[in-house]
């Protein structure tokens, strides 16, 4: 599509959706809902295109015998087997359900477990990477909160849990809200840049 024409359509639709959120005009609200539904539909089609992209990338890896091509072959094989089973049996079939429960969920859970080890290792290396006041405060707070929240069988130190909660609720939440305000303003301005056509990720300029 002609790029200025694409930009004009994108800006017009963006403005309609934005105004539909803020202004109580029935026509704009109806248009906004309709356009958002189109966007969801297009995102679904994009997911399908994305899967073809994934197949293409891994097929090229196998064809060129690149490093790790065995894993690409496993990925493509399991993808096609799962797709075929899903089409033949339907997504609610017990075999499909057990595939999800026996393969996907345990694999993701094991990655989560790996993440715990990775984060402990990263925290240990933090002092080697960067020694400053913020690093000391970060690690001391982390250790203090972990220590205070650790369950003690006797239950005699319940006041410590309150101290941990107050650290989380007051300074940590306050800091996080400050960061979120900055992020929200950044998001607002970035969105407006796209809306005004200053940035065009849908065709560039």
């Amino acid at each position: 599509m002609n790029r200025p024409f694409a930009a004009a359509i994108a800006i017009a639709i963006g403005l309609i959706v934005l105004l539909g959120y803020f202004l109580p005009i029935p026509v704009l609200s109806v248009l906004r809902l309709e356009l958002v539904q189109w966007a969801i539909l297009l995102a679904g089609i994009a997911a399908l295109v994305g899967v073809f992209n994934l197949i293409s990338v891994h097929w090229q890896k196998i064809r060129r015998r690149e490093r790790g091509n065995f894993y690409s072959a496993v990925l493509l094989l399991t993808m096609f087997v799962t797709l075929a089973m899903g089409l033949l049996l339907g997504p609610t079939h017990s075999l499909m359900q057990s595939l999800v429960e026996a393969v996907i969920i345990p694999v993701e859970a094991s990655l989560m477990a790996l993440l715990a080890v990775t984060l402990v290792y990263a925290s240990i290396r933090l002092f080697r990477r960067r020694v400053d006041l913020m690093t000391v405060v970060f690690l001391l707070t982390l250790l203090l909160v972990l220590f205070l929240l650790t369950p003690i069988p006797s239950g005699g130190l319940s006041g410590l849990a309150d101290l941990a909660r107050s650290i989380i609720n007051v300074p940590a939440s306050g800091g996080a809200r400050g960061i979120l305000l900055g992020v929200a303003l950044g998001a607002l301005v970035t969105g407006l840049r796209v809306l005004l056509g200053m940035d065009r990720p849908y065709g560039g300029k």
Partner: protein
Amino acid sequence: MSALTGFGVVLLAVFLLLAMTFIRRKSPPVFREIAAFTRLRRAAGLAVEDGTRLHVSLGRGGLQSARGASALAGLALLRRLAEQASGSDRPPVVTSGDAVLAYLSQDTLESAYKAAGAVELFRAETGRLSGLTAFSYAAGAIPVVRDENVSASVLIGHFGPEAALLTESAERENAFILAAADEPATQSILFASVQDPLIGEELYAAAAYAGAETSHAASLQVQDILRWLVVLALLAGAAMKLAGLL
């Protein structure tokens, strides 16, 4: 009332953005030093010189959600980096955890190559969807860092804790890492796992620091003005509460 206030803030931001872009045209932008961006410029230059690859990971913030803005900031940075690296033997590779984002990354790469006059070097496979869930996305992006001769890895967008797996894999390959996420919890993870993490709204300054147009610098100034207005509103609210007016 709240919808109208929101609309007022948006209108004010639009006005400021247009005004600052106009004013900024007359003077070159001056930024405070952020070590991560200085290192990124150096790493991008080195990648072109020594024939290694840049890896840009845009996270899994779909444009249909509120997380889309961080992805748009990532795309703006990608555009600059791709233009810089368009002369390289090994083009930058982009991974995303959202299909729309993957498609936009391909479009952005193509635009950058066109702008650099090297559109024949563009390959659609360099903008990839690596997975549709948090950990499948990370699992799909890790082999890219490991197997494709990556010397600099840029993580910018919406990430969860899986970002630690990506930074860990890049560190194992001795690659430079620039990491910026929109989630405060992820930022704390990146603080522990990256040399110079970007905190808060620094994510949205990435394109301006990568040498973008005056409008990018103007948008940073608009953010500063709006931040001061928020600070004043918070202080005024606190004072009115103390005085019993609220």
